[in-house]
């Protein structure tokens, strides 16, 4: 039986939390109630990426792209589109410029994107292995097992130029080669799905939207290095991803694509899921392996690298989710094809979780070498509320800030490192003039204080020291000497800390001091925070010339510290003010002043 229509409902976590599941069920029951259930198949897919406008529903073959759909819209979608063949215009995505209906490929958000990793997200039902197979899934594994030697696989990866997407950008082929070399009674393959960068969700969406791509790649690695066992280490905070992965592993076993004697070739490979338990440092590979072993996740010095001596002392290849998801495509389309995409040193694409003060938050995949301007302005639709761009943070708490003058730099591993930031795993957080760089640095440092495992002194003590200095600066009691100290401690930590966490923890602070020294000085010398974020440095007052005496601010003030009347206008009692900023927000006449 062939369906005439397909309705794809986004089942990523973002949309799911906005009732996508109810929409899905309602569409099915409406199709039944209206007697068209044989004409239409309703599918729950992975993330479409356009999270800002979720929940998203797409109807094929009409290519109708509906945004911000509610369960109550299901009835109309079925009645109008499926029964009568007319689009529900009111739900169609419209952008500011083109008021008319736009086709999916014309949506700005998707135009500059190029999808390899997210190839199946938002297209297939991730809980159905047949849909993955129908889109060339497991073709790479079959090709490898039937016609390639381990050496050939490594050669193909080498040609592709694929580098690790977990942050450091280490060439993937080399890691595999290291592990393939030594003889050992057991070797392991591990997927790092710990995704600790707060504000990033690429790996979550990939596992939720296309779990088989990771499974297939891990089996290919098992064959290449001679491992029969793999682990996916995934954050316990991602229940939906864990569920989809469990289903996918079970289906792959059923189909003989995992387990003993895969595809009758004599090669055996089994996968197990292990859960994290909320420790950022467990994203670091040696700590992660300790955690799989059931211990406290404390990093150990490298070398030896896990590729030689990893899980339970055995050679272990550990790669990031996104790295894995690239591999089946490299095998089927060839390393040369992949190497044509990207820049000289960085091949392929990168997925970013674009968040913060942009108009279109979401998940974007672009070729390496795309500029930040293209990502933030063309795809992201620019800065929210017409505010001024201040900077973009890549690499999360390990990265740095990128300012206006570098917006046109093609991004790849080297260019970002050159700016004092790093590629990181793909968090891309946009800040505007209302964000204070000192406050944000303090935020990241507080995160590192919480997450430092405490094993080495430079990190344990250094993060605390830097945090208390940053705290003083935001409170207006910092000194010029403090600024020097921040830099000194930071550089010492970079050299002396045991693992990447401590070595990179000073980065957000050092990079903001470098790019926004004037703002630090303002906090220290003038006791001012131009963004108005550091409450101790902000004073609210009312401009009598602008105040029309409406009294809205006084009514909103939670501590009743604003008094006045229509004739006298209003004043704020600075002593009693708790600096919540409500008056500033509600005044329609710009009469409330900050600073």
């Amino acid at each position, binding site marked *: 039986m062939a369906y005439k229509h397909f309705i794809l409902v986004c089942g990523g976590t973002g949309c799911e939390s*906005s009732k996508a599941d109810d929409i899905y069920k309602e569409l099915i029951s409406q199709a039944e109630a209206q007697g068209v259930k044989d004409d239409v198949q309703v599918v729950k897919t992975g993330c479409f990426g356009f*999270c800002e406008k979720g929940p998203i529903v797409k109807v094929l073959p009409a290519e109708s792209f509906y945004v911000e759909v509610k369960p109550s819209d299901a009835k109309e979608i079925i009645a109008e589109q499926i029964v009568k063949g007319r689009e529900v215009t009111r739900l169609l995505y419209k952008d500011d410029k083109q008021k008319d209906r736009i086709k999916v490929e014309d949506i700005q958000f998707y135009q500059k994107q190029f999808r390899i990793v997210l190839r199946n997200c938002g297209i297939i039902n991730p809980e159905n292995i047949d849909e993955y197979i129908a889109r060339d899934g497991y073709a790479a594994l079959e090709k490898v097992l039937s016609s390639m030697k381990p050496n050939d696989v490594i050669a193909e990866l080498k040609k592709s130029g694929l580098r690790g997407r977990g942050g450091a950008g280490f060439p993937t082929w080399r890691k595999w080669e290291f592990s393939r070399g030594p003889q050992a009674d057991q070797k392991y393959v591990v997927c790092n799905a710990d995704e600790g960068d707060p*504000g990033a*969700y690429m790996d979550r969406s990939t596992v939720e939207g296309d779990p088989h791509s990771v499974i297939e790649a891990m089996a290919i690695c098992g064959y290449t290095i001679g491992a029969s066992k793999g682990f996916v280490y995934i954050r316990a905070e991602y229940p939906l991803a864990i569920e989809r992965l469990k289903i996918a592993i079970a289906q792959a076993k059923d189909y003989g694509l995992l387990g003993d004697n895969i595809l009758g070739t004599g090669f055996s490979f089994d996968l197990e899921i292990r859960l994290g*338990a909320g420790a950022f440092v467990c994203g670091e590979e040696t700590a992660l392996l300790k*955690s799989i072993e059931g*211990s406290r996740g404390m990093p150990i010095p490298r070398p030896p690298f896990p590729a030689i001596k990893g899980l339970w002392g055995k050679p272990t290849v550990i790669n990031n989710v996104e790295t894995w998801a690239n591999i089946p495509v490299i095998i089927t389309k060839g390393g040369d094809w992949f190497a044509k995409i990207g820049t000289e040193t960085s091949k392929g694409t990168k997925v970013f979780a674009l968040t913060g003060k942009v108009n279109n938050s979401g998940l974007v995949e672009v070729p390496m070498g795309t500029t930040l301007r293209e990502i933030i302005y063309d795809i992201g639709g620019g800065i929210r509320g017409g505010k001024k761009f201040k900077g973009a943070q890549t690499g999360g708490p390990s990265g740095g800030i990128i300012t206006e003058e570098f917006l046109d730099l093609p991004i790849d591993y080297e260019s970002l490192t050159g700016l004092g930031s790093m590629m990181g795993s793909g968090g891309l957080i946009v800040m505007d003039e209302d964000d204070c760089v000192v406050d944000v640095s303090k935020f990241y440092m507080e995160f590192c204080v919480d997450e430092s495992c405490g094993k080495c002194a430079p990190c344990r003590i250094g993060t605390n020291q830097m945090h208390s200095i940053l705290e003083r600066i935001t409170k207006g009691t910092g000194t010029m000497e403090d600024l020097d100290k921040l830099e000194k401690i930071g550089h010492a930590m970079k050299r002396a800390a045991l693992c990447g966490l401590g070595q990179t923890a000073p980065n957000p602070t050092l990079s903001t001091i470098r790019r926004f020294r004037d703002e630090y000085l303002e906090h220290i010398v003038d006791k001012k925070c131009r963004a108005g974020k550091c409450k101790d440095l902000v004073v609210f007052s009312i401009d009598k010339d602008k105040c029309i005496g409406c009294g809205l601010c006084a009514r909103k003030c939670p501590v009743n510290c604003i008094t006045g009347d229509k004739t006298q206008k209003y004043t704020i009692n600075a002593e009693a003010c708790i600096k919540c900023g409500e008056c500033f927000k509600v005044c329609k006449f710009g009469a409330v002043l900050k600073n």
Partner: protein
Amino acid sequence: MPAARIEFSKGLQDFIQEWKDKPGNLIMILHRVQQEFSYIPREAAERLAEELSMPLAKIYGVITFYHLFKTTKPGKHRIAVCMGTACYLKGGQTLLEECEDILGIKGHEVTDDGLFSIDAVRCVGCCGLAPVLMVGNDVYGKLTKEQVPEIIAKYRG
């Protein structure tokens, strides 16, 4: 006389049996225990030490290392306010303070009636919807402070 042993459900006992001999099982078993009790009671840790033939100190070493494991009982409805970067920039702190004001407790505390507890968490992976707050498994995104009282009221029932 030894204290009465803490009850483990059949499901939990089966789980422990299944995992008992797998290397590196402790964290998986602790997750399952926490699923059962909503935290890890001391008696449960003691019973695990016995059944897994593992020093209690090792078990506590692991429990206290990982943020997700709790040694005290949380509220019936656990409010998790996201303080990941995306949510922080869009006002996560304000949401947290609003929850604290309404319930009269601070982060990591439980209300007297045992109904609510508040935690500040790091990124729940819905950054596109920032700022985000969760109650149990329900996610609420794109929130303003004004919406918080209504959300909390829903769970008072």
